[in-house]
């Protein structure tokens, strides 16, 4: 039977071809083969309403009732991750329109994902949308109520009117004193007139002082559209800037005195290690004690 012996290479090749044939014919049974096509603008600006059109096909036919979501790559406060922006369900034509307002400064890699059963994962469609630089403030603080004319002007009118009348009465008293000097009087009694002058002067000075208080006090309750509101320290202080001399997270000169104990405690405090590990590393309720030999293998082993 020597003419019947097939070479090994032929067996292997045949086996491989058979497997390939099986796989290729069986693939549609195992693979979902949902295709996602996406229509998205190339470029948006901050605050713009964006529409992402997703077209889902399964085996060439439009897929109805499928839920899709659009996500983007977000980052805030040292954390980054994928964030879902909007969801939609496809209609009879397999189209789903997801809309959202562009809030982020950059989108990174965006994806339209099919929110189907987990055991049949569908490859998401990735795309990018560029965001134009610069942008208007979108979120406006809803602070207070502004009623026209019910403000400092009205108060100034009322108060200064009243004080003007008080000053007027005081001036009349001055004139009373002056009228008494019409007849011949010894000059030793001249001092009496100065009382009324002092009264009148005090009234006028206080009135002016009050007005100065008014004009000094800016509007608090900042509307973010208020031009004064953007400068964080002009909000309530009239042109008094508050120097940021705090712990100076952006200026660590305090931690360069050369004394390791001082420097260490400054940094330990600045970067809020103390918040969880307590002061002097004794361990607060939140974090663990740091007084073991840090860096030794044994302490590492204990912590793990």
């Amino acid at each position, binding site marked *: 039977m020597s003419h019947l012996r097939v070479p090994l290479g032929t067996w292997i090749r045949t086996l491989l071809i058979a497997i390939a044939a099986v796989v290729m014919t069986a693939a549609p049974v195992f693979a979902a083969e949902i295709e996602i096509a996406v229509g998205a603008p190339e470029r948006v600006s901050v605050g713009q309403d964006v529409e992402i059109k997703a077209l889902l096909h399964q085996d060439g036919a439009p897929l109805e009732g499928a839920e899709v979501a659009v996500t983007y790559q*977000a*980052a*805030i*406060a*040292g*954390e980054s991750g994928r*964030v*879902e922006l909007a969801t939609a369900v496809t209609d009879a034509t397999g189209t789903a329109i997801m809309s959202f307002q562009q809030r*982020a*400064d950059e989108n990174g890699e965006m994806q339209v994902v099919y929110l189907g059963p987990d055991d049949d994962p569908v490859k998401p469609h990735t795309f990018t949308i560029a965001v134009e*630089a*610069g942008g*208007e403030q*979108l979120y406006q*603080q*809803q*602070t207070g109520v502004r009623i026209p004319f019910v403000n400092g002007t009205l108060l*100034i*009118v*009322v108060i*200064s*009117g*009243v004080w*003007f*009348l008080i000053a*007027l009465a005081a001036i009349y008293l001055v004139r009373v004193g002056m009228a008494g000097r019409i007849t011949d009087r010894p000059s030793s009694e001249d001092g009496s007139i100065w009382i009324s002058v002092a009264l009148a002067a005090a009234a006028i000075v206080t009135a002016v002082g009050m*007005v*100065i208080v*008014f*004009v*000094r006090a800016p509007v*608090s309750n900042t509307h973010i559209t208020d031009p004064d509101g*953007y*400068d*964080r*320290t002009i909000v309530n*202080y*009239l*042109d*008094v*800037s*508050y120097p*940021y*001399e705090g*712990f*100076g*997270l952006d200026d660590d000169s305090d931690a360069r005195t050369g004394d390791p104990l001082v420097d260490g*405690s*400054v940094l330990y*405090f600045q970067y*809020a290690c*103390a*918040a*969880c590990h*307590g*002061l*002097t590393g004794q361990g*607060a*309720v*939140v974090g663990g004690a740091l007084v073991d030999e840090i860096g030794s293998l044994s302490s590492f082993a204990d912590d793990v």
Partner: protein
Amino acid sequence: MKQRPDKASAEASSSEEINITIESVDRRSALKYLGIGALGAVPLMVSAPVMNGLVRDVVKGTPADEGSAVAEPALTKSGRIRQWSMIIDLKSCDGCQSQGTPPQCTTSCIEGHLVPQPMEWIEVFEAELPGGGTQFIPTPCMQCEDPPCVKVCPVGATFPTPEGTVLIDQERCIGCRICMAACPYDRRFFNWGTPPAPPEAALADYNPDHQTPATVGTVMKCDFCPDMVRDGTLPMCVQACPNDAIWYGDLEEDIATNGRNIVKASRFISGNSGYRLKEHLGTKPRVFYLAGHGEDVGRDPDETGRMPTEWPWIQRAEGAVTWTR
């Protein structure tokens, strides 16, 4: 009303019989005087802008203004101002019952800011649920958009920043405590005595962003850790929560994070039945709550009680004067 004859006044050196004419108070004289008064207000009003400018020039000369750095508000990449807010997921908060410790958000805030005892800038209240049982509500300062405390302060010691946080300038505060009467959430605290301070406090240059060292006779409260978030880390309470129940967000870019995940803030709030405390008062708080009682971490509403708050750093403070709430 009789009038004394003039000739008598020339010789009299005293004021024996006198009758003073009080003008009859009729409408005309009243209106006349009111008119004079109103007229007197006009020059003051007109000069107000001029005086405003004059006063600004005078104030400009103070040393604090010259050549000092002004802290920039926290900005997005394109220069929009961040609008800080918090979302607290009550489904994940169990008052640290499962940890067996006092609430860790409170403790980390106390340790990190050297908060004097008995202040709890973020306080975990235990509220009764309508159907029985309790829920835990960590309550930081609400950082209201229409803050009653800012409205009533006579000297502007408490003020809102462009990021939306409400800060206190303890160097301006006169200690009148009307802000404490005005706050409807019990979130402001007063230094009744000289607050204790450890040696580290001396390293701090005082700044409203970081209320250390505390001074007697002034008001303090949660400030959303503005110095930390401006530099890209999360506040102490957010970092410390073992269940990641506190989310910190920016309403401008509409994202929030709890240190582990990121969400789109508006969808997160609306999709989880978010609400705010005492909404009817119109304070428009920036802290949102997602209803729950700790069920996501396995808490039953009938498990009441939490560990009482502690101030561990006080043990290191010399001659600590403390008081009760």
